[in-house]
């Protein structure tokens, strides 16, 4: 009976940590909540202008979709390396955790490089934030110029998150031995969130804009 009462009070802990997480972790969760609303607003805004306009669907399956699928693979794998980092840190293997975090940052940087190659490809084709290439306008008459605005806007905000994530991870990797385990876990939370956002951006921006005519 005594142990049961003790377990209860331990669980309650005097109400000091009602969520049983540190204040930093709670702060990161709150940030993720607000950031997920930012991305939802962007994606819903995109859906709004897309449904109310003639919308170009320019991505060929190869190379366009295959290329962005590889980017997705890179980002998903970086999430796995991040989980490995947190799990080694939980076992007290800090230098191993630091290497896994570095691997995550390298994969994140790879993602950015691939993404910039793709941006350059579209810019060379003549896509601008408020202007479509002439061939696209002939193919999709009356198409809205907002394609570029939503594409560069949404993928740009996401890429900025990956970029800041890489810097954050580098700082955490360098200071891994001085930080508490929970701090490493928090950097993981941010990184997985960036991955999660891509899980919506990739289907909505790319897969729903596959060119029906070209294979």
């Amino acid at each position, binding site marked *: 009976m005594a142990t049961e009462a003790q377990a209860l009070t331990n669980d309650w802990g005097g109400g000091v940590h009602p969520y049983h997480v540190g204040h930093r972790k709670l702060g990161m969760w709150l940030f993720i909540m607000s950031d997920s609303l930012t991305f939802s607003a962007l994606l819903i805004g995109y*859906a709004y202008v897309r449904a109310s306009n003639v919308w170009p669907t320019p991505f060929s399956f190869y190379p366009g979709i295959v290329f962005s699928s590889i980017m997705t693979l890179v980002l998903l794998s970086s999430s796995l390396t991040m989980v490995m980092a947190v799990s080694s840190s939980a076992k007290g293997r800090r230098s191993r955790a630091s290497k896994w975090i570095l691997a995550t940052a390298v994969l994140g940087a790879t993602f950015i490089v691939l993404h910039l190659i793709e941006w350059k490809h579209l810019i060379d084709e003549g896509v601008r934030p408020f202007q479509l290439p002439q061939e696209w306008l002939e193919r999709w008459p009356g198409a809205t110029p907002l394609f570029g605005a939503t594409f560069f806007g949404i993928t740009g905000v996401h890429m900025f998150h990956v970029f800041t994530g890489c810097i954050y991870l580098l700082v955490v990797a360098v200071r891994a031995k001085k930080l508490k385990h929970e701090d490493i876990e928090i950097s993981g939370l941010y990184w997985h969130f960036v991955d999660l956002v891509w899980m919506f951006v990739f289907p909505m921006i790319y897969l729903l804009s596959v060119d029906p005519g070209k294979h």
Partner: protein
Amino acid sequence: MSAHAESHDHFAGTNRLFVSVWVWLLALTGFEVFLGYIRLPVMYMLVILMGASIIKAALIVAYFMHMRFERLNLVMTIVPAVVICICLLLIFFPDSFRARELRYGNAQAAPEQR
């Protein structure tokens, strides 16, 4: 939830579990890309892709972000608020059909999305 009760400071979940979650995420992504390859009509695509993406998001939050092993208190504070806010944002969406009619006119059917 209960599996976590006895080990709070340990990072619950084995590497094997995380690798299998990763494989599931890859498989769902592959399925989505396949749908893009066979070019389903855009409405079917939208519904299936959003369904698959929500499952993927749930897997990431539950296992990679460790939510499944957190106290229920934290989960109930974070998840419902975000879900409700996103649903509220969606209230604007039906107006896009009205905007489409204004733009392309009622008499002439609006050009279908391909």
